[in-house]
């Protein structure tokens, strides 16, 4: 009996212990450094950007130069400053979005997995339903109905991204609940909350962290796509997706659209590097089911 309990702790710790191994991956380090630098940029943008991102200068469509590292746009604004300030919009919003989605998806998925029965049925049918409706279509309809704006875009993306998380959490909770050591613990009369906090939570937390890293990348992509379509951020806000959209109108001044795109790629790549390496450390199967939708 005590062997089972010890065994469970071992299982836990092996997963967690594999994390340091992930740091030996060079790409993990690259991801971490990139993500950290973007966080710093987001925090310090007002102090490190050379110009006010909204200030309209006299020099329109200037190619990159010493005065304007990434050139100027159609209103004479400094593209470099706007790209830096863009981090202040995309990163916090993506984090807000992911935490909202995880709170909703995690709670519902956890309840479904733990309680089972009709709760499980209702939550999972709801998730199936959202899965069957294309993400962007639902998001577009929500934004079209509520009006464009970053906050509405965030709501729309939360609405479509919770089911993925709910599925994973439910799956993880169920697997843990069905495992021998929880069953044994129950037999021995250990209280439910103890099973939850000691057995279920640690086993679920690892994969969920990985999922969160990957979801932040996806959230940034989807938010910028909505802004590109004119449904998220609104000019004159310096948001990357809408900057690419402006750039698309001015092919001849390629720098207006190219650099915000590079910014999106680099930050999403950073989170994907992190998430991918961490996933290797945990059980990859658990996460398979959530991704892709």
């Amino acid at each position, binding site marked *: 009996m005590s062997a089972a309990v010890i065994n469970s702790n071992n299982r836990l710790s092996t997963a967690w212990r594999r994390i340091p191994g992930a740091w030996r991956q060079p790409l993990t380090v690259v991801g971490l450094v990139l993500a950290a630098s973007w966080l710093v940029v987001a925090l310090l943008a007002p102090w490190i950007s050379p110009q006010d991102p909204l200030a309209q200068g006299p020099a329109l469509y200037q190619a990159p130069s010493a005065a304007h590292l990434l050139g100027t746009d*159609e*209103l004479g604004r400094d593209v470099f400053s706007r790209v830096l300030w863009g981090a202040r919009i995309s990163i916090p919003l993506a984090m807000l979005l992911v935490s909202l989605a995880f709170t909703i998806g995690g709670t519902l998925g956890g309840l479904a997995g733990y309680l089972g029965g009709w709760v499980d049925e209702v939550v999972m049918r709801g998730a199936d339903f959202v899965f069957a409706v294309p993400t962007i279509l639902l998001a577009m309809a929500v934004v*079209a109905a509520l*009006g464009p704006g970053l906050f509405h875009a965030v709501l729309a993306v939360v609405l479509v991204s919770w089911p993925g998380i709910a599925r994973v959490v439910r799956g993880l909770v169920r697997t843990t609940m069905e495992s021998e050591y929880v069953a044994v613990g129950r037999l021995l009369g250990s209280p439910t909350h103890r099973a939850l906090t000691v057995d279920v939570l640690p086993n679920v937390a690892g994969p969920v962290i990985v999922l969160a890293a990957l979801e932040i990348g996806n959230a940034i992509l989807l938010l910028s796509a909505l802004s590109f379509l*004119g449904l998220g951020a*609104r*000019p*004159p806000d310096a948001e990357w997706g809408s900057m690419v959209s402006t750039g698309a109108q*001015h092919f*001849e001044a390629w720098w207006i659209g190219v650099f915000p795109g590079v910014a999106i790629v680099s930050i999403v790549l950073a989170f994907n590097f992190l998430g991918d390496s961490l996933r290797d450390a945990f059980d990859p199967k658990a996460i398979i089911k959530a991704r892709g939708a």
Partner: protein
Amino acid sequence: MQRRTTLLIAILSGVGLLLGAACGNSTSPSSTSSAAAKTLVVDDAYTWDFSKDTDPSRGGVDFDADPFFHAIYDSLLTFKLGDSATPIPLVAESYTASADAKTFTFKIRKDVKFADGTALNARDVEFTYNRLLNLHDNPVYLLDGITSMKATDDYTFVLVSSVANPAIPFIVTNPALGIINSKLLTAHGGSAATDAAKTDTAHDFLGTTSVGSGPYTMASVNTSQVVLKANAKYWGPDKPNFGTVIFRNVAAATQLIEIQKASNQIELSLSGDQAASLKGNSKLTVTSFTSPNITFAFCNQKTVPACGNVHFVNAIRYGIDYQSLVSVAGAGAAQAPGVVPTQFLGALTQAQAVKRDVAKAKSELQASGIANPTIQLDYTISSTGLNDSLAAKIKANLADVGITANLNGQPSSIATPNYRGAKYQLGLAGWAPDYPDPNDYQAFLPGQLVGKRAGWLTGAAPAIEDLGARAGAAADNATRGKLYQQLQTLLNQESPMLPLIQPGQSVVGTNNLTNVIYSPVWYLDLAAIGTH
């Protein structure tokens, strides 16, 4: 197992084939020499679905369909290429107006044939006008004030207006009033009866068959393109030069790069800046000019009581830096000196336009007694991003005066009903001419279409309303011109209407084309376009 590998190999070689084909020579086969086989491509960036625009009596006027309606349907009168000041005969060989400008008699030509060979007569004209009236769809306002429209014999058509309306010869040039083959359309669900709005079912038929007498015929229509074929039996002297004309719905950004690879192609949606970037390309002809559309702002008294305070409106009026707006509106852009565009009768000159005067604006703001005003600047997000740029400029301009403007750009689905429902605060909107005559701009007066959207109701400015009524009914052009100028001078002093700019507009064509000339009503005269 064996089977599966073979399948895999088959798929792989299929992909190889695709890649090989894609990397091959991609010259377009459009360079055939025979005139009948030549294809002209015209690109426009539509926000609407082409399929909607099959019926001129429903889809005309508002939806950019005019160039192909104009090519398919002949109207009573038309304009010479490049002109919009003097209506000239087309289906009507002549017309007379009564001295009070209320009764217009059109003599119909006897040699006009529809695309199916049927001869056109005054009954077709009567059918067309009645159908437009009774469908009661978008273009119905063209017939506002008309009390009678009758064919008095086979070749005479008479329009009677309840009020003097010297603009009628201009109005009847509109492609929405292109004459329809009444026999053919009636046989396919068309109706001009009073219940036509509910009984007419010709919409889909009009997308596949031509029922006009114009130089081109409708071949097919779908969401992304309209295909026109030359009308082999065209009755007029100038036969169409291209066998096929294709109107495509292409985003402006894509147009910009496609035109540089094309021949026999015209792009209509490039912004002034985009067009300017093509100026150095020797294979293209770039025409930039001042658009007859005006972009204006208005201060809505219904949502913002301060807009009733003339000093406050003047603070905005003199606070806006019109030249800075012109600078972002593309090559050819100009300040709009009044609501009537500079191309039309009765327009003000640039010298008479409002000039920025920050000191005056500040003193006006002080005189208004409103401290630290904040106002929302509402507008529609435009596909070219122009409204965003203008709004950003206005916000910066007004900040200099001490007025805070919060930008609220919305997509058309949300902004348009707000604008039309008079829910804007400080609104930014546009007006495209329905017909090239100052009477179209009566809409900006109190209690009229745009006036009401600014909460500017009938009785709000009796002097302006009186002057407007006199200008609208005056019969001779010299008097009308003078009255409209007086009217606009007054509007620029006392109204909540703030004319801003006439944006730059561009037509870019490959330089083997001739007669690519812009018209304020139907954009392009497709039948006139030829090749060197």
